[in-house]
């Protein structure tokens, strides 16, 4: 119970943050000039009177707070409503988009974490200056090169010059690009943490016993670095929200980011809110899970 209470508290705080995110998104959408009726009006050439009639029918002429409360009540019941623009259930659109984003996010996460830890462990075990230089280069790359630019360069090289990958719909390049970026963001921290861990007495003892460098790294050093690894993994996952959005647009991937952007352009509020809600709840879930796991594997956090 002593360990569970802070997790529940963190979960409640996270949900409150998610609600705040959705509320801010809702009101920002209303601050934007134009609404979905304007879009339908432009596409269908509706007169002012017809637009007013449609706005009333959709409840868009009601106070903003009332609209938000109504939408929130429906959403809590699992009903995200219908896309006004495309006249189809929002849930159906999310079901189409979510797997793409999930695949991209998990793939990038796997590449990022795998590369960062692989390099850091190898550099620690082998005490290799070359690997340290690679780690520095990767770190500088992630700071200096925006993923969007890397994406364009990747398209030019792998799609136009080499012709290996398509521009539209390819997951390989975006996963590699975001993965590299993620790895660059954390690899140096992991490396430094591991470097400190190898100086610990039990690791020194292991070395004195003549264990192999890889066994020392994996069995004696890595568990010490697990908490920081977990925290960094959480950061990477949270950062994927922005990373996947740009890659989805650049590579024409029909994920939640593309769905959200198109909905913003079309002022399709139910879709925007549903997408924001999914992302916000996912962030809360990630953070809460990381927090819980952190407490589980590192008792110092609970103290």
């Amino acid at each position, binding site marked *: 119970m002593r360990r569970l209470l802070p997790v529940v508290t963190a979960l409640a705080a996270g949900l409150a943050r998610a609600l705040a995110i959705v509320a801010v998104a809702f009101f920002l959408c209303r601050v934007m000039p134009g609404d979905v009726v304007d879009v339908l009006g*432009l596409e269908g050439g509706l007169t002012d009177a017809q637009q007013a009639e449609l706005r009333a029918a959709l409840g868009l002429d009601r106070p903003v707070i009332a609209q938000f409360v109504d939408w929130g009540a429906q959403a809590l019941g699992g009903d995200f409503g219908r896309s006004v623009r495309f006249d189809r259930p929002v849930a159906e659109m999310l079901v189409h988009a979510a797997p793409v984003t999930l695949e991209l996010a998990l793939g990038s996460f796997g590449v990022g974490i795998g590369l960062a830890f692989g390099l850091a462990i190898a550099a620690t075990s082998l005490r290799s200056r070359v690997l340290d230089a690679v780690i520095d280069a990767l770190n500088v790359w992630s700071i200096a090169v925006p993923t969007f630019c890397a994406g364009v360069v990747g398209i030019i090289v792998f799609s136009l010059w080499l012709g290996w990958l398509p521009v539209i719909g390819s997951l390989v390049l975006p996963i590699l690009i975001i993965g590299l970026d993620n790895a660059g963001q954390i690899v140096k921290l992991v490396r430094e943490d591991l470097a400190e861990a190898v100086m610990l007495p039990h690791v020194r003892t292991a070395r004195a016993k003549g264990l192999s460098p890889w066994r020392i790294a994996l069995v004696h050093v890595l568990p010490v670095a697990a908490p920081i690894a977990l925290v960094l993994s959480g950061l990477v996952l949270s950062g994927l929200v922005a990373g996947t959005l740009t890659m989805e647009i650049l590579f024409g991937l029909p994920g939640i980011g593309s769905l959200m952007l198109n909905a913003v352009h079309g002022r399709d509020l139910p879709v925007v809110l549903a997408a924001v809600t999914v992302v916000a709840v996912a962030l809360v879930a990630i953070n809460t899970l990381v927090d819980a796991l952190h407490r589980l594997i590192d008792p110092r956090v609970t103290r």
Partner: protein
Amino acid sequence: MPRSSLSLSRRGLLASAAGLGVAALAGRSGFAATPTAGGVLRYATLGLDTSDPHRHTGSIAVQQCYVEALTSIAADGSVEPFLAERFTVSPDGRNYRFELRPGVTFHNGDPLTAADVVANIERVKSKVKGGWLASAMKLVDGAAADGPNVVTLSLSKPYAPLLNLFSELWILSPKSDGWAETIKTPIGTGPFTFGTWVPKVKLTAPAYRNYWRSGEPHLSAIEFDLGDGTDKALALRAGDLHVANVERDTVEALVASGKVDIKALKDTAWFSIAFNNRKPRPPFDDPRVRSAIALAVDKAAIMKFVGGAEGVVTNQLVAPGNVYFDQALHDADPFAKPDLAKAKALLAEARVKPEDHTIEFVSWVGPYPQIVVQMVRKLGFKVNHVALDDIGAQKRLGQYDWDMNAMSSGPRADLFLRWVRLMTDGPNPVLWGGIQDAELDRTITAAVEEPDLARRKAIYLDATRRVAEKVYFVVLGHAPDLVAVAKTVQGYEPGFTWACHWASGGVARAALVAA
């Protein structure tokens, strides 16, 4: 930039259109040999916002492949028979008779009948609010089936654009899912069927093997890319797309890649600066001040910027070469060249000190309005330029709390669809400042009701003069929209509008060949 592939003067366009016609008469245009069967054409121009064709009335480029109309617009802008094999109009322009093409079937196998066509006309008349067809439908007194293959239509008064507008009155099977409200799965007669649609992502349209024109379509399917963010130029170069609209600044790299040909729509987009005509505030309600501002704008420079060598400076809603274009009026354009001295004299005459006034200027996000703003600033006016996205700009324009804008509008099936936006109760008039002028309304209405082309042209020219006299807006010029077509595509040439399929051309005749 290789000019050979981009020499798109109006004469060139007309010559190309004529060439297309000759090729069409000779057989199937664009094929050196028998077209290859099969293959999926990947196509990305404009989007698809609804599965109900009757409710879609903007600039559209997708649905023509699965739904067809009684008429269509040929590459030269003329009306040609489509599902109607023949049509006649009574001398008074009030009675129409359409003879349906035999052997046409819907995608569910049902034959097309006159009763189906009448049902579609009735549906549009009763269900569709607003749009280009709404005003025409109000004039329809009666639509009736005269036997299984003839449809008659009577209007309460003549309406000249009807045949052109009927190119967008899509004929669907009344058995289409959602017919009573919003059609979910349209059953049309086109060369492709409405397959799988994921909004803003893609539409897969498989070929309809019982299409009424023997031997077509050649392709096995079309995959429409409906995403907004895709870099189409890169996708074309990588071979991911076969047909896509492209921006002018990407043309050079595309041509250099050797993988695509750059072609142009046969109708043009027109560019204008407009003033707030619904709630104008002093001194921008004064035609002398408006004229002074127009004289500060270098139309040739703007049109070269937006249209390159294909940009045409004029003062009319149609470009040179169009049947409604008038050379004398064009030659008399007072704003053809900038004249700052004359502009300043006009301001002095109106007793306006430009430095005392701030122009509230609204535009879409883009470079050319910024150039217009810089030109206007030369007169000494302060300019508060607000650049917004499409919806944001049009919403702001609808508030009529601004003074001036710089906008453009794309190809249309009929000239009336440009003029209707300038009428008091016209759809979406904000781009041209919400003109409210009963005299102009009467003139446009008279043009619409005039069955004779020569007399109609003369009346439209009167309307043009009225706009010029009041300086409601100033036409800067015209430029064609560009479409890149992969060299592996044969038999496809862009048409008059964004339509992907029409009676004498389009995707039904396209085929893919090996690279």
